[in-house]
């Protein structure tokens, strides 16, 4: 055996744990779901090949479109809000005030609360009559809405609950803020730049690579959003609810329902691939557009 061949084998042996794990837990399931998406498969019996039926049926499936629309609405409101609030919060956390470490810990705290615990907590917080949210609104003379019973208020409720854990994004922004060269701010101040000019021409460009990362990560999270609406819409243990007028039915919830309640694994697999393609398309658009707005210091 030549040295080169031995080295290649040794390299493969070292990489084998990853390669085997990747093959079994990622590559095979992805390929299998691609195959099942062209079949009628109920988990327990051999799949029947049905061609592109699962894909064409989506076009006429009213609940598919409701779920997709709900998900896209949550995404286009939730992602920008997450970015804006996280960035603004990071600036506040960066202020040299007394108790700064405590404030940083407090904003991150919700991120370590188990999401199911948070979900049940928010169900009560959003309760029309007894909830804290409406109680506080009433203190300033606002008659709070029926967050979980009025179709037009359920999505704000989901976004509100999701934003509760924005502390994780905020901390990443805070770390990025620390990397902005101070001399740039000093030079701008000498030139008479106000806070907005400094933000626009120094902070924003420097943070833009982090923003690109955050937009894509949040986008993927919102397109797959499941736990928050599932918990808020739940009316009975083990059942998938949809909220009033199906306003809380998200894509991932409907996919889950098809897979594990209706045992339509073929249709659910096809839905998973459509979601993957939608996510990929939006991500590509964002990456292409990022050439215009992401500041790359190496260029």
């Amino acid at each position, binding site marked *: 055996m030549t040295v080169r061949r031995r080295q290649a084998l*040794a390299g493969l042996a070292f990489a084998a744990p990853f390669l085997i794990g990747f093959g079994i837990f990622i590559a095979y399931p992805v390929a299998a779901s691609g195959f099942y998406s062209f079949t009628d498969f109920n988990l327990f*019996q051999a799949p029947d090949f049905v061609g592109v039926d699962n894909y064409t049926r989506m076009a006429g499936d009213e609940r598919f479109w409701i779920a997709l629309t709900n998900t896209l609405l949550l995404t286009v409101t939730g992602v920008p809000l997450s970015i804006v609030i996280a960035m603004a919060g990071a600036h506040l956390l960066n202020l040299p005030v007394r108790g700064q470490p405590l404030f940083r810990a407090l904003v991150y705290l919700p991120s370590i609360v188990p999401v199911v615990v948070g979900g049940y907590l928010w169900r009560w917080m959003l309760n*029309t009559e007894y909830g804290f949210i409406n109680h506080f609104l009433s203190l300033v003379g606002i008659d709070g809405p029926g967050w979980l*019973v009025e*179709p037009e208020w359920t999505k704000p409720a989901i976004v509100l609950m999701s934003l509760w854990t924005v502390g994780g994004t905020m901390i990443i922004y805070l770390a990025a803020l620390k990397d902005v060269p101070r001399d740039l701010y000093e030079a701008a101040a000498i030139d008479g730049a106000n806070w907005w000019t400094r933000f626009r021409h120094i902070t924003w460009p420097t943070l833009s690579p982090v923003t690109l990362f955050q937009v894509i990560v949040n986008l993927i999270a919102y397109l797959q959003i499941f736990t928050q609406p599932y918990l808020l819409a739940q009316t*009975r243990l083990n059942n998938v609810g949809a909220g009033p*007028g199906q306003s809380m039915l998200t894509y991932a919830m409907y996919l889950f329902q098809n897979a594990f*309640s*209706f045992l339509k694994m073929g249709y659910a697999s096809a839905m998973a691939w459509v979601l993957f393609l939608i996510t990929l398309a939006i991500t590509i658009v964002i990456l292409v557009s990022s050439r215009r707005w992401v500041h790359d210091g190496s260029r």
Partner: protein
Amino acid sequence: MHLTSAGRRRLGVAVGALAASALVLTGCSAAEPDGPEKITFSYLWGGAEADAIEAIIADFNASQDEVEVTGISSPDFQKQLTSLSASQGSFDISDHFGNAVGSWASKGIIAPLDDLLAANGVDPADFAPASIEQLSYDGKIYSLPIAVHTFQLLYNKTLLAEAGVEVPTTMDELADAIAALTKVEADGTITQLGLGDPSPSTTITTLGYAFGGDWDADGAPSPTNAANVEALQWYYDNVVAPVGSGKLAAFKSGVGEYMSPEDPFYTGKYAMVIDGEWRAVNIPNTAPDLDWGVTAIPAVSSALADSTQLTVSTLFIPSNSKHKEAAAKFLAYLVSDEGATAFSLALGNLPAKLSLVGSSAYDGIPQFSVWLDALASDNVHALSSAPYSAEYSTDLGLAFDEVLSGTSTPEAALQKVAGNSSNYATE
């Protein structure tokens, strides 16, 4: 890394020894040890109900020495499905609900019980016919009812007396009672609802039977049955329309948790509800001061008197169990008069066996007999258990939601369900 030939030999010996050990251990685990045959009973119940189940298991284990049952509380449907899909499951007997039987039986994941029941002297004729009908598929019985549930009209005696309302016995009287017992403030805010709905789907499907409807005719979904549409329209006209769907939703969102001390029926926010027999056990514990009564749900004609819906908690043996005969012995014990009585008393459920309908064992539960006696009624109906049941009940729930929220008419909403049914799973 470069191994010498001696090193390679040593490695080979080590791998061989490991493989041999694995084979021996596998052989050991497959062999049946001496003593009782061990089986696992995985059940969905938890908390105090699980404690009651464990007591029954202990009684069974003490009563004989052929089978030893280990109970596991696992209230997770997905875990149950995962085990059912494996070549060797993690349990030998478990429980579920009647509406899943058709779907699971059609996929071959639960075992037919006819021969096992005959071998253990269990006669299906001892059980409520509607329950056995729901648990059969393609002419075979795939599950046995461990407990059944019927639905009746509960009322708050104090609120009825205050409003001068007699207990309703006809649909017209029920409509009048709802109107008299619903209180709305000048700005439209509801403070008391005549008829509440702990589960809108159950309330409306049950009313469908009281109107002479049928949700599954000739083995297929029949949502547009004229009486079903009439029942849904009646519910909308008498419960929703007088107060407005928006105000009703706001009121319902502010009520307390079901069966807790803040349950709206216990706090007087709902004057009447249609609900199951578990209330008879829950009320004395949770709302001991509540002065309540229960009566049969009024029907539109005397021929439909005592109409109600039957739902079933079931026991099944998975096809992948290696201990079906032993599991059947335990199943036979659970459904015996002794086991079924202990079980139903512990959970506050109705026994599934007709022979227990007149049993004095339930005398201690207040007003239990109203639900119990309904088992003998000719107008007890159960939703069919078919491969499409999960989709059908989901679609019915969505249709009811559309009507109750005022976004669709009963006819249009149920017509949409009928349209969807062509895409339902067939096996």
